[in-house]
């Protein structure tokens, strides 16, 4: 069915008062445009409004790598995907139910990459149909005809023309008009929407805020008078206060809350927005954001600050982490606390700067020359981004070592509501004891069992010593004897064992034993859990296990794996498929986590690793699980 709205903007004989509202429990909406047309602002606002109404949400930004890619370009499409549910939403979902496109080429880009529900409604700007350039008209008509032929519900709308009725520059305001339309179509609270628009433009003039409010209301009214469908997504009441943030905001809040006082960074996508947020507010808690001349300097400044008693964080993404690795070795060797956040993107090299990948796990664990034990954690949810930082800072100071927190592009820009953190003084570590030291105090007074030692901070009387990246003795002197290096390496390693003994075994989702166990880490948790839940409903014997500590790994993981007939890791990093050309058991390359698990537990862990640059969809996991289950039945 196709409904074409006439250019006058009215739908034939349409009476909005009698229209029925279809109630949904879960839906996926996308807005796509050329870069710079504000699709993301509209979509993030729509998501925030929904979250404030109590809905579960998940957003994924569709970001081109360039600031201004050529217009009307399928590969340069910019946009956003919003999944809204009655209950908590943990991933981007599968199929698009409604998409708004500012031009047909952006839409083509999505058609090539994303799954459209057969009943997907497409709202399409139709100014291209009458464009002076005949080639544009031809392109537009071709795509339009194709969509109609494929049976989609296409609503052609003179979006820019409609906006021009209200503002002098309609190009800039289309996004808020669309937000208004969506608010009507999904029965969103218009009052909340108005507040959200004012918040989104809070750095702009009142005139700009007013214009956007006019457009919001105009879009809402127009949809009411001209579109023949309407939904609601009733939210299940929640009895807890929540906050809704994206992952980078959660990281920034965590840094604020952790008591760290220095965030040294260098701009890099997709990590930078952590610092944007912090730069505005960090001074309120006595912190500073320092933008260094390069990634290496950022890490060095953090180490300097931390050495001087003010624990520091450096926030980066893959390429930046590569540059910092020599300094990570220094922090390990010199036993200086450091928190490093790696908001992963596609690699190697410049890779996929704006896209999703979990490719840095091994690079993070083994990131420097020599044996350099450090803690590696991965946030699985947006809420985790907040709490991981609190934990990381404490571990860094207690164990005197770098703690790496992995996030990724999926968490970075995705929004999700979660329980509002309740402030605790424990988040902030107590002041470091700065009293003069007893005679004979030494900087590396290693406990022979745990490798732990008490820090000495510059300024402390009686503690003067020289930190060095050279192998050193307990009193901080350069080590020249063979046993000195052997022992100090052992102590630094022993700290991980000590931490490992304090970690809780992660909980299995589903039965504790069965046919298939799906292992994951990081942002894929939501998609894996959803796939597993669906299949369990069908009665299939599948469970999942998600790891937050990757180095060290909690005890009990090996035992859990051994209780399943087959084990597979699902990860967003590259792996050879076992049936690939010239791939044999001897040359097959496994995904990051699978390799670690195989090495540590001697379990034949299978792997499903993909690098499409997209967040994981539950349906994809589901299909793979079915295939793996089938293999068990064949071999059994």
């Amino acid at each position, binding site marked *: 069915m196709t409904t074409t709205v006439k250019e006058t903007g009215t739908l034939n004989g349409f009476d909005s008062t009698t229209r029925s509202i279809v109630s949904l429990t879960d839906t996926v909406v996308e807005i796509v445009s050329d870069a710079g047309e504000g699709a993301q602002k509209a979509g993030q606002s729509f998501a925030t409004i929904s979250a404030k109404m109590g809905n579960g949400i998940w957003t994924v930004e569709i970001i081109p790598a360039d600031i201004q890619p050529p217009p009307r370009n399928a590969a340069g499409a910019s946009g956003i995907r919003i999944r809204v549910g009655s209950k908590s939403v943990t991933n981007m979902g599968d199929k698009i139910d409604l998409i708004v496109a500012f031009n047909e080429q952006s839409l083509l880009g999505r058609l090539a990459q994303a799954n459209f529900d057969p009943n997907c409604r497409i709202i399409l700007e139709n100014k291209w149909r009458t464009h002076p350039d005949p080639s544009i008209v031809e392109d537009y008509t071709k795509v339009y005809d194709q969509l109609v032929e494929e049976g989609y519900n296409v609503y052609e709308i003179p979006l820019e023309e409609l906006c021009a009725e209200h503002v002098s520059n309609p190009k800039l305001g289309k996004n808020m008009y669309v937000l208004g339309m969506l608010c009507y179509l999904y029965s969103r609270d218009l009052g909340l929407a108005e507040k959200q628009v004012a918040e989104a433009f809070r750095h702009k003039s009142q005139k700009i805020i007013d214009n956007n409010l006019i457009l919001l209301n105009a879009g809402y009214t127009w949809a009411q008078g001209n579109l023949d469908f309407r939904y609601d997504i009733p939210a299940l009441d929640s009895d807890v206060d929540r906050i809704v943030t994206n992952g980078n905001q959660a990281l920034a809040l965590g840094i604020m809350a952790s*008591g760290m*006082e220095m965030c040294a960074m260098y701009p890099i996508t997709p990590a930078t927005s952590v610092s944007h947020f912090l730069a505005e507010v960090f001074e309120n808690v006595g912190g500073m954001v320092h933008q260094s001349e390069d990634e290496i*300097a950022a890490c060095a400044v953090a180490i300097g600050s931390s050495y*001087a008693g003010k624990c*520091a964080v450096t926030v980066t993404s893959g390429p930046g982490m590569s540059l910092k690795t020599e*300094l990570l070795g220094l922090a390990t060797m010199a036993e200086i606390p450091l928190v490093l956040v790696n908001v992963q993107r596609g690699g190697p090299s410049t890779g996929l700067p704006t896209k999703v990948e979990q490719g840095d796990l091994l690079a993070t664990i083994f990131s420097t020359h020599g044996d350099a034990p450090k803690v590696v954690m991965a946030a699985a949810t947006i809420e985790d981004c907040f709490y991981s930082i609190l934990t990381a800072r404490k571990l860094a100071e207690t164990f005197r070592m770098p703690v790496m927190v992995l996030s990724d592009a999926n968490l970075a820009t995705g929004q999700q509501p979660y329980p509002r953190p309740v402030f605790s003084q424990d988040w902030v570590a107590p*002041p470091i004891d*700065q009293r003069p030291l007893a005679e004979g105090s030494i900087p590396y007074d290693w406990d022979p069992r745990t490798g732990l030692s008490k820090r000495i901070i510059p*300024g402390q009387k009686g503690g003067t010593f020289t*930190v060095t990246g050279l192998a050193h003795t307990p009193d901080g002197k350069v080590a020249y004897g063979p046993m000195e290096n052997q022992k100090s390496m052992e102590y630094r390693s022993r700290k991980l064992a000590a931490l490992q003994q304090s970690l809780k075994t992660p909980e299995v989702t589903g039965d504790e034993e069965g046919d298939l166990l799906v292992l994951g880490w990081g942002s894929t948790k939501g998609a894996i859990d959803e796939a597993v839940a669906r299949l369990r409903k069908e009665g299939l014997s599948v469970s999942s296990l998600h790891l937050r500590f990757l180095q060290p790994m909690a005890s009990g993981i090996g035992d859990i794996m051994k209780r399943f007939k087959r084990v597979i890791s699902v990860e967003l990093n590259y792996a050879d498929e076992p049936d690939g050309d010239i791939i044999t058991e001897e040359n097959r390359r496994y995904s990051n986590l699978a390799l670690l698990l195989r090495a540590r537990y001697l379990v034949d862990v299978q792997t499903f690793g993909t690098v499409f640059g997209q967040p994981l969809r539950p349906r994809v996991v589901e299909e793979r699980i079915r295939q793996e289950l089938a293999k068990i039945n064949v071999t059994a």
Partner: protein
Amino acid sequence: MFGVNETQTVDYSQEYYSLEDYQSSTPRWCSGCGDNAILTAVQRLCRDEQIPPEKAVFVSGIGCSSRFPHYMGTYGFHSLHGRALPIAQGVKLRRPDLKVFVNMGDGDCCSIGTAHWIHAIRYNMNMTAIVHDNEIYGMTKKQASPTTPMGIVTNTTPKGTYMEPLNMLSATLGISNVSFVANAVEWIPEVLYEVIRQAYLHQGFSFVRVVQRCPHFLPNIFDPFLRNPDAIQILTNPGATPMSDSLKSVYKNVVENNPADINQARELSMQKDVMPVGILYQATGVPCYDELRRAPRVVSMEMRKKALEDQFNRFAVNAG
């Protein structure tokens, strides 16, 4: 407030620090190495200024000269090749109470850490940086450094170095916010001490290049200056300690310099065959990044809580 208690005060008035308080292990530098003279000058400075040993931090990179902190009785940080400056910045940014010194070699400063050098000048943070310039890589056994003169045979340039050396003085004088540039030679301890003292007293980033002999790999490279005192151009300025009579009797090439004149400083730094020794340039009132970024107030737990709750409110979705 989390972290270090900066308000802690200790009464040092009864304590007098002697040279021994600034000494640590016996230096393992070669005999005749110019680094020894720099160490002596710096230990003297600490004693004369009565810097509490625990309040001084010497940060170094990698190379012979970067062993420096190990021989000081203060806090020290022997870091990575080229990275001394940003580590020192991290210390200074959050601990303004500490006196920060940086010791680098010519490879540290002008090769692997060049980006940090340029930016350290621009940050103009309160610290004293000493470049031990022996015009060669010593620790790795005689490779060309950016400051090695043209035509010198080294292990990586068996036919002689190909390029003119990098002039770190004129380069430094070309960077925005430069506020203190001096040149010294380790074999004139009187001027070396005076230059380091002025550098220490300077408000902002003091850049001191010390020309330093490597007796092992380039024993004769500075002979033209050692054999001919007239090739050494002593810079005096109105604020400096007057030259001793013995110094005057050897070094006749004395120039009255106005350190506020950057054009004159640049001209002095670009001379061939004559080496200026003393303060080339000094500016007052250049903004210091560490002061611009100093935390405006001590944050109480209540303030911390409020700041966080304000942010949570921004993102709040209330129950119901």
